């Protein structure tokens, strides 16, 4: 390429990688400069390349070496952003430990309602983070903010080191999302509904069809490629939605309640698929209100309620940190029985919970209050969840 003259359009000299090329009408390749900054390179002609924000210049430089020298002059700030580390030229397979998502005191208000209320967290590469919370806790709003579908009201949010909304075009290119509701085009055949999504992502027909065939084969849905979406079962639709989310080779996969409304067999199949992606190094964000799902998949869970993160940690660590080891759960007791000093009692609705670190004390209690609805078990994430979000209805 060194001999060919390159027509180069310099974009957004001021902010490193604050690239906002709305349209390269006639194609053109975005090249991220190692020093931070971006070019749109159009071999030959530059007609039709436009820039909407930031200063732009049309230059013709002789080869990549000259481009490099030029970059050193026009991008004085040598700050490499995390985005470069992930997606810069020649770093496609590079591993970096920079967090993929960082959020600081993030706020989203709808009038007086604080849907997301001062949330701070980091999501590191290859991590699977589960957002747990009752309906209306702000989980979905948070996911939509990461996807640039909802703007923030305050605080800071970075995805791949970039700012959602203003840099959505660069961010969303590397995110795959499985929405809570089926929003595949129900009029189309399964493969076609994936194809249109591939086109949205900027794939050409051939690449899209190849990837769809591969993904359907992986999900063992190949024979359903021609079936209409409305003829498919809930589990098949959900698997198709996961396939759709993977078409653009995402670095971050967002799943909004991926198994809500599915039967147990399908849930286990989907968990297996997601674990396979996880082993491959996929970074996953998932919202759920199934504790079991969080325990199955998440390296870390964040328990949310009323827009706030109440707890953040590994599922088992949270149980150990916040609760006794054993729980005796009894329903419909007429009176609270006598119990040992190390037993803690809680009452919620018509149920009574007795917590203790010694199984023996609960065993004694169990003998006395035995009913068909009495259970003695290990404390689990659901107990932690209920302890922090309350036993009553939150709506």
């Amino acid at each position, binding site marked *: 390429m060194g001999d060919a003259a390159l027509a180069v359009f310099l974009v957004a000299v001021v902010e490193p990688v604050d690239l906002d090329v*709305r*349209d*390269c*009408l*006639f*194609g*053109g*390749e*975005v090249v991220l400069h190692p020093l931070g900054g971006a070019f749109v390179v159009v071999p030959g002609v530059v007609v039709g390349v436009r820039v909407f924000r930031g200063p732009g210049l049309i230059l013709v430089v002789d080869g990549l070496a000259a481009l490099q020298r030029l970059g050193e002059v026009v991008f004085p700030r040598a700050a490499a952003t995390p985005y470069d580390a992930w997606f810069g030229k020649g770093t*496609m*397979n590079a591993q970096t430990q920079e967090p993929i998502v960082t959020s600081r005191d993030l706020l989203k208000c*709808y009038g007086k309602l604080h849907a997301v209320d001062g949330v701070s967290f980091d999501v590191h590469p290859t991590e699977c983070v589960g957002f747990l919370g009752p309906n209306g806790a702000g989980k979905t709003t948070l996911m939509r903010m990461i*996807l*640039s*579908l*909802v*703007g923030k009201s305050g605080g800071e949010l970075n995805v791949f080191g970039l700012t959602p*909304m203003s840099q*959505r*075009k*660069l961010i*969303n*290119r590397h*995110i795959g*999302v499985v*929405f809570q*509701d089926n*929003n*595949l*085009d*129900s*009029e*189309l055949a399964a493969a*076609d509904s994936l194809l*249109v*999504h591939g*086109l*949205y*992502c*900027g*794939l050409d027909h051939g*690449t899209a069809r190849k*990837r769809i065939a*591969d993904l359907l*084969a*992986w*999900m*063992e849905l190949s024979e359903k490629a021609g079936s209409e979406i409305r003829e498919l079962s809930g589990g098949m639709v959900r*698997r198709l939605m996961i396939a*759709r989310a*993977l078409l*653009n*080779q995402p670095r971050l996969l967002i799943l909004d309640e991926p198994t809500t409304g599915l039967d147990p067999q399908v849930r286990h*199949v989907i968990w*297996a*698929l997601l*674990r*396979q*992606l996880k082993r*491959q190094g996929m970074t996953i964000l998932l919202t759920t209100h199934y504790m079991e799902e969080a325990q199955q998949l998440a390296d870390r869970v964040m328990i949310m309620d009323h827009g706030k993160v109440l707890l953040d940690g590994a599922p088992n660590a949270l149980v150990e940190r916040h609760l006794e080891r054993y729980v005796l759960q009894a329903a419909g007791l007429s009176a609270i029985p006598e119990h040992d000093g190390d037993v803690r009692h809680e009452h919620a609705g018509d149920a009574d919970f007795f917590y203790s670190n010694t199984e023996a004390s609960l065993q004694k209690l169990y003998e006395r209050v035995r009913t068909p609805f009495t259970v003695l078990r290990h404390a689990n994430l659901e107990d932690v969840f209920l302890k922090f979000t309350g036993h009553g209805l939150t709506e």
Partner: protein
Amino acid sequence: MKSGSGGAPLPEFMRVEQACALRTGLFWSLYGVWYRHVKVYCRTLIANAMPPVLEPLFFFTAVAVGLSTYMRDGLFDGLPYTAFVASGILASSSMFTGVFETTYAAFVRLTWQKTYDAMLSTHLRVHEVFTGEFLFCGTKGAVFSAVVMLVTMLFGVKITPWCVLVPVVGFATAYLFGAIGLIVTSYVKMINNFTFFTTGVITPLFFFSGTFFPVFSGTLGPPTSVRGVVDLLWFVLPLSHSVELSRALYKAQADWMTLAHVGMLLLYVVVAHWLALRRIRTRVLG
């Protein structure tokens, strides 16, 4: 093995990074959206296309063919009545197809099917998603206006060589009314509310833009007389210009007014496009 149990290996493109040039420019973004709409529309083509094709033809047979038997050799604006109505109706059918796409259909996509969430979760921007939709409206307008022209030819309506431009007028009309419909949709909370718009705005436009009878006196004057006011009102209606332009093609005549109609149509397109994108942005990015 149970279906989809995760036993199969991940597809290769998910395991090994493959260089793949993404087509992220404006053209390809618009193409993706346009392709989706065409694909979905064609999947149920008969059900989709029957009403918008048949309806104008019913009007044409009832009004033009039916009434014109009572009109002896009378010319309307220099055209036989059948040609007069045919040229008007192809513009109004483009209007209907554009409006329907971005009111009822877009509302369903917005609130129930969540189609726009899926589009906007990719790198597509709001203006690309909805411009693509207007282009699809325009495509439908071009096709339907051509179909109306061809079918009315079977009833003996004569065309001129200029009528090859009819699809262009149809395209612009449907694009404009696609944008206008989307402005309305950005305000609408319940699907029933659209009836106010269709009955209160679209139906009067259909009848009073010069589709069935000449409204314009011939010269735009100051609004000092009733005649002047009516002319001016007519000139402000967004459908009038499409009707007049398609009529100019049928007459194979152009004058300064024709140029004014082109200008007004383009002005409306630009303003409606800009306003629609501005409005819908706040609606979809809540």
